[in-house]
């Protein structure tokens, strides 16, 4: 049959089998790839405005710890994570909010009123009232909410919280 335009019965069967096989493989195989990588394609960051109560209730110049929880659904499981922030009211209208998560390894820092600094209980990282590193291993200042990440609506303080 070489050089002929006709294909033999055997060649036809081989070709058809290969074509049908490839088609079935693609119909199952391509969706399978999408199926496997689906969770990686989901948006992983969520954001929300978290109300932290009336600004007037916070004492000026004294960092106050506020905790809140956020729930997150991963697949079929819901987890509730708790977060803490220090609200530092500088004046009647000026406020800055710091995350209480140490920038070293993520332990929760505490405000020490005697020393006037945030101290991390894990590796003795120290931060000033403005969030800057005073000593210890932390590589950068405490994460802060200020500018457009903070809003005061009808006297209520809100922070723009990002997750993930």
């Amino acid at each position, binding site marked *: 049959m070489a050089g002929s335009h006709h294909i033999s019965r055997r060649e036809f069967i081989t070709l058809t089998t290969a074509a049908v096989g490839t088609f079935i493989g693609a119909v*199952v195989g391509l*969706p*399978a790839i*999408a*199926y*496997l*990588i*689906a*969770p990686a*394609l989901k948006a992983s960051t969520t954001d929300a405005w978290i109300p932290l109560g009336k600004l007037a209730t916070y004492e000026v110049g004294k960092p106050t710890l506020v905790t809140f929880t956020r729930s997150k659904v991963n*697949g*079929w*499981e819901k987890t509730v994570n708790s977060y803490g922030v220090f609200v530092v009211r500088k004046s009647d209208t000026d406020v800055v909010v710091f995350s209480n998560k140490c920038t070293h390894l993520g332990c929760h820092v505490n405000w020490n009123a005697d020393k006037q600094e945030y101290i991390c209980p894990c590796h003795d990282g120290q931060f000033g009232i403005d969030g800057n590193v005073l000593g210890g291993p932390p590589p950068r200042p405490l994460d802060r909410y200020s500018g457009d990440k903070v809003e005061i609506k009808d006297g209520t303080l809100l922070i723009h919280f990002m997750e993930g």
Partner: protein
Amino acid sequence: MIMWKKLFAWLDERLGLNDLYKATLDRPEPKGNWWNTLGSASLFLFLLQGATGIFLSVYYTPSPDHAYDSIQYIMNDVAFGWLIRGIHHWGATLMVLVVFIHMIRVFVTASYKYPRELTWLIGVGLLICTLGMGFTGYLLPWDQKAYWATTVATSIAGSVPWVGPFILKVLRGGTDLSALTLSRFFAAHIWMLPAALAGLIGIHLYLIIKHGESAFPGKDD
């Protein structure tokens, strides 16, 4: 093209691909008949069930707390999850059907006779394993239908004289249908039965290649 031929020749010399092809796929066949393709169809469905089952196990969780929710997640939130599970669901029904028709064909054409008695016996094992796959897989969605179907079916097994209560406890992993039932059905469904099936299929195929396919009985038979 030349390069591929060279590569193939290199591999063939070391792996014996042509001999393998001739022995397994290029065998002499009796006159073609569509009824003779049901074994291959069963094998294809087994492989399809294996592939889709492996994919389902990526998300499925065999625990009473999460089994149902994880399947809801597969159906609603995973890309093409409905397709993978749909193929597995309908493939299961189709496989039982095809295996049964395959058995009936072998029976009607008397292909189980000498020298193929063992092929038939292995086939019986394959049928039982296939039904076992259907039985264990039915519980895994852990919905009302699955729960009560398994309650009834294990109770039937429990009605055997003398040893019934023991069989029931072995099947359920205790007296009640529980987390233990779900996890042991899962283990049977994805490890024990597939391993048994794969092994028996290997012997079944070897015997078919060894004896060749039986010719369709003619008028004189």
